[in-house]
């Protein structure tokens, strides 16, 4: 079986169209960022997130409704609590989030225990016959203000450092223009995904940051495969115009790029649909990353290099430089 053999898509000629498409996606994302902002999770803002299972052991007890839980928490001193249903209604699993406690002091340590206390006292029927520690508490995260702030700085630093290191590596192996354009393509990927997270209001958790960094690594991988082919073909076809060489290289790597993205997409979709609630947002980010990372590797990164050569009028010199290097 073969897909995309001997294709001759006009990637280079139509590059303006791709740029416009990307620009639209990025602009939409930026608007989302400005309007909605990012929904940072408890990991970064500090506060308490508790997932509790309040499915009554006794099936005659009517399932707990979200507004019952909300009003009880409200009247017990947590009016700011955000409550969400997790999974099926019948499961009666709830995520309770109380972000950024007002005080800078260590109130959160008590908040956690208070929430559990309030639940146990107010919904005895739903807790009866269950071990609170084992069966009711599914998950609790409690993050103090100091840790949250530090983590946000660290996350931004991590993304930044990995981008710099990759520029250095690509510069060393190819040349600076390629390095910068590869990074531009990465920014493009990350910006679009952050934009989608802003638009959908999904939470940015530590796992999402991990997904972003993986996408950075994954997308650069695709981009480099194309660059590598360009470097090789330039040496082999010195007489052809660089636009033709670029276009041919993009076409030749097309089937590999699509196949690898396809297999990775298969696994990330498997994670999204079957990997359970905890990994769902992570898989969502990964899936988006694979789609846009592949898009930018095929349509954006190399075209940006060409655009830059046009802009700087030093095409010949650069290409000679490239052929000399290895």
């Amino acid at each position, binding site marked *: 079986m073969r897909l995309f053999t001997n294709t001759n898509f006009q990637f280079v000629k139509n590059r303006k169209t791709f740029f416009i498409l990307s620009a639209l996606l990025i602009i939409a994302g930026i608007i989302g960022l400005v309007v909605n902002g990012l929904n940072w999770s408890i990991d970064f803002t500090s506060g308490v997130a508790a997932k509790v299972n309040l499915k009554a052991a006794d099936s005659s007890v009517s399932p707990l409704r979200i507004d019952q839980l909300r009003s009880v928490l409200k009247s017990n001193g947590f009016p700011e609590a955000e409550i969400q249903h997790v999974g099926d209604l019948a499961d009666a699993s709830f995520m309770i989030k109380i972000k950024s406690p007002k005080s800078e002091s260590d109130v959160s340590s008590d908040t956690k225990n208070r929430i559990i206390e309030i639940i146990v006292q107010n919904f005895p029927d739903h807790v009866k016959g269950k071990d609170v520690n084992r069966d009711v*508490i599914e998950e*609790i995260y409690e993050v103090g203000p100091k840790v949250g702030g530090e983590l946000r700085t660290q996350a931004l630093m991590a993304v930044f450092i990995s981008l710099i290191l990759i520029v250095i590596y690509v510069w060393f192996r190819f040349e600076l223009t390629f390095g910068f354009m590869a990074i531009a393509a990465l920014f493009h990927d990350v910006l679009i995904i952050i934009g989608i997270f802003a638009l959908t209001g999904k939470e940015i958790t530590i*796992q999402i940051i*991990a997904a972003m960094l993986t996408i950075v690594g994954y997308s650069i991988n695709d981009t480099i*495969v194309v660059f590598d082919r360009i470097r090789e073909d330039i040496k082999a076809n010195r007489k052809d115009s660089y636009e033709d060489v670029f276009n041919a290289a993009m076409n030749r790597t097309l089937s*590999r790029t699509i196949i690898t993205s396809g297999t990775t997409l298969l696994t990330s979709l*498997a994670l999204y649909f*079957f990997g359970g609630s905890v*990994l769902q947002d992570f898989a969502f980010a990964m899936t988006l990353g694979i789609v846009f990372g592949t898009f930018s590797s095929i349509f954006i990164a190399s075209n940006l290099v060409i655009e830059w050569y046009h802009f700087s009028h030093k095409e010949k010199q650069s290409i000679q430089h490239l052929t000399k290097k290895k």
Partner: protein
Amino acid sequence: MKKISWRSLAIIIFLCVTAFYLAPLAIPNLPQWWAEKTLKLGLDLKGGMQILLEVDTSELGASDAKSAVDQNIKIIRDRIDKFGVAEPSIQKIGEDRILVQLPGLADYSGAENLIKQTAMLEFKLVADPVTADQVMQSIDANISANIAFFPSLQDRMKPLNPADTTAANTQSVFSGLFTRDAGDFVVQWDVVPLVRELLADTLFAQVVRSGYQLALDKPDPTTTRGERRIYVLQANPELTGGEISKAKMEYGSPNSTDPNVANKPYISLEMNNDGARKFETATSNNVDRRLAIVLDNIVYSVPLIRERISGGRAQITGKFSAEEAHELSIVLNTGNLKAPIKPISTVIVGATLGSDSIKSGKMAGIIGLVAVVIFMLIYYKASGFIADIALFFNIGFILAMLTAFGATLTLPGIAGIILTIGMAVDANVLIYERIREELAAGKTPRSAVDAGYKRAVVTIWDANITTLIAAAVLYNFGTGPVRGFAVTLAIGIIGSMFTAIVMVRGIMETFVLTGTKKTMSI
């Protein structure tokens, strides 16, 4: 027989290492030293608790601060060992932080209390009623003179006094919070949080007459809306925990007339010689006064001194459950922390969620794996089959290496393995696509494979090193689960490079490129 090449040697080593570390997962009844080397599950899969603690060294000098953190770690480890948790992990993070991980733990609040208690035990005399009243009055006077510093009390005064601040109210601005019961001060449950906050305030400490301090008694564990008492104590302790040699939980005699003692758990204390002597002096000088037993500024009990007590024995009775009494005996035996600690972040994962995560992770992995395997078979036929074999070895290699490094498998780690399944075929795809191109150009399978490998390997290196850079950064940034993800990703990349470049080629050389066949299945 052919000479053994470096390639077959590398493959043999790869297989042996993988088999060695995977054996404990698959084969029961291995010798102990071998079976021990099994893959550990992270807290997010096994369930349990993780607390990040910060040591408050602000009141210590630089050299003391450093040793205080280390001593605290030792004390915490001691307490956890006595509490009984399998495979605890206690690490120092940075200068003044301690990360405690307790996998498989179920009693979350008990463990948290046990860890964070400073356990500073003190015996302090309760001020006599007349003095106590004087202390309270001076606090009232000092606070009303500086009411701007106590906004919580200022707010409290307003609704009582919408028009003006009359003397009547300012006079009892603080003591008015309490009711009286035979000379003691009783705090109703709804003002307890306010009082607790005030007692923790350093400004408040300045308005209390020097030589005295205020402390709440221990809450009743059976109810959250119980009233509490507040005591005026002499600040200078008669005796401290340092003079206790042994603490033990015991049960009170069923015949006792005191409801707090009969059949109730209590802590018996034995003092060292020094402590016994001090205790004897203190009791003989203060007959008919009450001696408060104070732990971390909470009054546990206030027994009346009836006579001089010699022999260096004392008891802490009070409203505690058997679990609390047990924890208390542990913290008293392990000594008090050298500097107070407070939890700055806590993660609790229930055992149910953990096992659900493993189940769904396995499910997603199997589905992803089957999809990729079938795709490779259809797309590359026999060569796809070889790549699939390599893929299985690669997954085995990841699990084996995680075991070898003593890493723990976390949920993001499982996600990493699943994603690696998709990414790992990349190296093979690169090679196969090149081989196809070479075959299309009219080369024989033999030279097409050689040329395909030669060209694709450069690309594989370039592309994977950048991914490794991202994984390395991720490792440095993350803690716990995210780190596990970075490690699996990195091992997966290395494994996929090895299997594609060395193993698949070895299989091809041995089985496919024999004789002078004119075609190959790719």
